């Protein structure tokens, strides 16, 4: 099957700032693709170029086999889009807004809208302006999903959602995949993409620096681990373990970095009585710093 999204040498700058530098990206039809990067890396710029909201300086894009610039209407008919900072006139109700957007697409069944709203526990009849940020985000998600598009392009879809709704969202992504839809979603949080996506691309300073299966990415991902024991421990016991680095011990507290498999660490720790175990994901910037250090002198 053809790729759902292909970009070749896609480049975009704002004034003197290079936002996207020669992006070559392929998203396969039917997959869930996570587009990862810290804020300001060029994720939103890429997405807006795909929708023809922005125009590239050079390079090309193809979305569902169409050129966004010349065949945009035909392409956007088959795409559902959630902008990164979803905004609309707050004086209307979600029902009014969604009916309007559905009409622009030639009509969307009210049953479909209502069942999506129900899943998200979204009240369709109060004014959008009076909704919380999370509830507004749900309006944005409903409008992206409501016409069951072939391709969903979602910019930071879980921003503002509480954990339960974020899980509901990932469930909907899984259903979309089962139904043969392609999902392209951006995030600056690795774990979010880990759970929902098949593959992920990592973008930094406008450049795509890695595209990998999510399992592979997870294997290479790093966590900060802090363990509190009931008595003092020695550095030497942990320092040589597989996947473990930067070990430091302060009395009965051990801190380290864990890259990949946790097996050896857990088995070693288990010899002691453990009072607390904290595992934290580093932010993407830090992860890049350790693992994808391209050229630190880049001016992006």
């Amino acid at each position, binding site marked *: 099957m053809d790729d759902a999204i292909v970009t070749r040498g896609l480049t975009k700058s704002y004034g003197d700032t290079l936002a996207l530098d020669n992006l070559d990206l392929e998203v396969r039809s039917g997959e869930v693709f996570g587009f990862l990067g810290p804020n300001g890396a060029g994720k939103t710029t890429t997405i807006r170029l795909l929708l023809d*909201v*922005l125009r590239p300086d050079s390079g090309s894009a193809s979305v569902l086999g169409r050129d966004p610039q010349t065949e945009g209407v035909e392409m956007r008919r088959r795409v559902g889009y959630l902008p990164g900072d*979803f905004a609309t*006139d707050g*004086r209307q109700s979600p029902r009014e807004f969604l009916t309007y957007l559905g*009409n*622009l*697409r030639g009509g969307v069944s009210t049953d479909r809208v209502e069942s999506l709203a129900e899943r998200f526990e979204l009240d369709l009849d109060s004014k959008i302006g009076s909704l919380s940020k999370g509830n507004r985000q749900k309006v944005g998600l409903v409008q992206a999903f409501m016409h069951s598009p072939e391709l969903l392009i979602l910019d930071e879809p879980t921003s503002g959602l509480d954990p339960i709704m974020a899980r509901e969202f990932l469930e909907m992504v899984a259903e979309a995949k089962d139904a043969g839809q392609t999902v392209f979603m951006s995030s600056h949080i690795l774990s979010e993409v880990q759970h929902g996506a098949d593959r992920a691309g990592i973008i930094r300073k406008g450049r795509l620096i890695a595209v990998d299966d999510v399992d592979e990415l997870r294997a290479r991902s790093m966590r900060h681990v802090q363990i509190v024991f009931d008595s003092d421990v020695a550095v030497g016991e942990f320092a040589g373990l597989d996947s473990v680095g930067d070990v430091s011990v302060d009395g009965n507290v051990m801190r380290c970095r864990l890259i990949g498999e946790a097996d050896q660490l857990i088995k070693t720790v288990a010899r002691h009585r453990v009072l607390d175990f904290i595992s934290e994901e580093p932010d993407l910037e830090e992860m890049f710093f350790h693992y994808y250090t391209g050229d630190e002198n880049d001016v992006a």
Partner: protein
Amino acid sequence: MMLRDIWTKTLWDQRQTLLGWAIGLIAVSLVYGGFYPVVATPDYAELIEGLPPALAEAMGWGDMSTPHGYLGATVFGLLGPVLTIIMSIGLGTRAIAGSEEDGSLEMLIAHPVTRTRVVVQKALALAVAAIMAGSVVSGAILAIRGPIELDIPVAHIAAASLNLGLGGLLFGSLAMLVGGITGRRGLSISISAAVVVIAYLANGLAPQVDAVAWLQDLSPFYWANGTDTLRDGIDPLDTLRLAGVAVVLIAGAAFAFNRRDVGV
């Protein structure tokens, strides 16, 4: 029904605003128009004659004792245009620049619509609103025409109201053009407002200085001239000029908006 297309939705979203403007225009028309019997007295004519002629001419007060002169200087010459134009510039600014800055335009153009369709439909909504503004003025004047014995044919009142609406449309279209080019709300309002002031002065003051008298002929206020229209009826060329310039400005807005990034 109102949610079916861009232009109907635009009007629907503005329904409260439009109602407010309509009430304001009706009030202005009734109050100003209703004062005609007071003004059409010898005392008042004497007062106007005591003014420096240049001032009277600049303000369009040369002919205050006739119904067309009075209405042309007041309802159709000052407050009517002011309200209609402010409303239209507001709508024209909101159409592109305003909705671009608040982020809602991105949502719209990410749908299966061309940018040209977005501009044309929002311009259509603006045109409907501007013509509506002219129509409520017409309606109000027609309502008091009998009671206060305004000796002006209905067709002339309708023509002056059409020009009033088209004048609003023209300046609203200018706001859309600036929005189409820049996407900036502040520029859209300020440039349009500046052009309104220049056009107003060109109509009122330019004729008094021989060297620049020709400027008057470029002013939409001159094309829409309420006094002449109320007296003589529609001047098709002037009315076409108002509509034609609006169409050109809208075409320019669509052209520019098609060629740039949105929401940067």
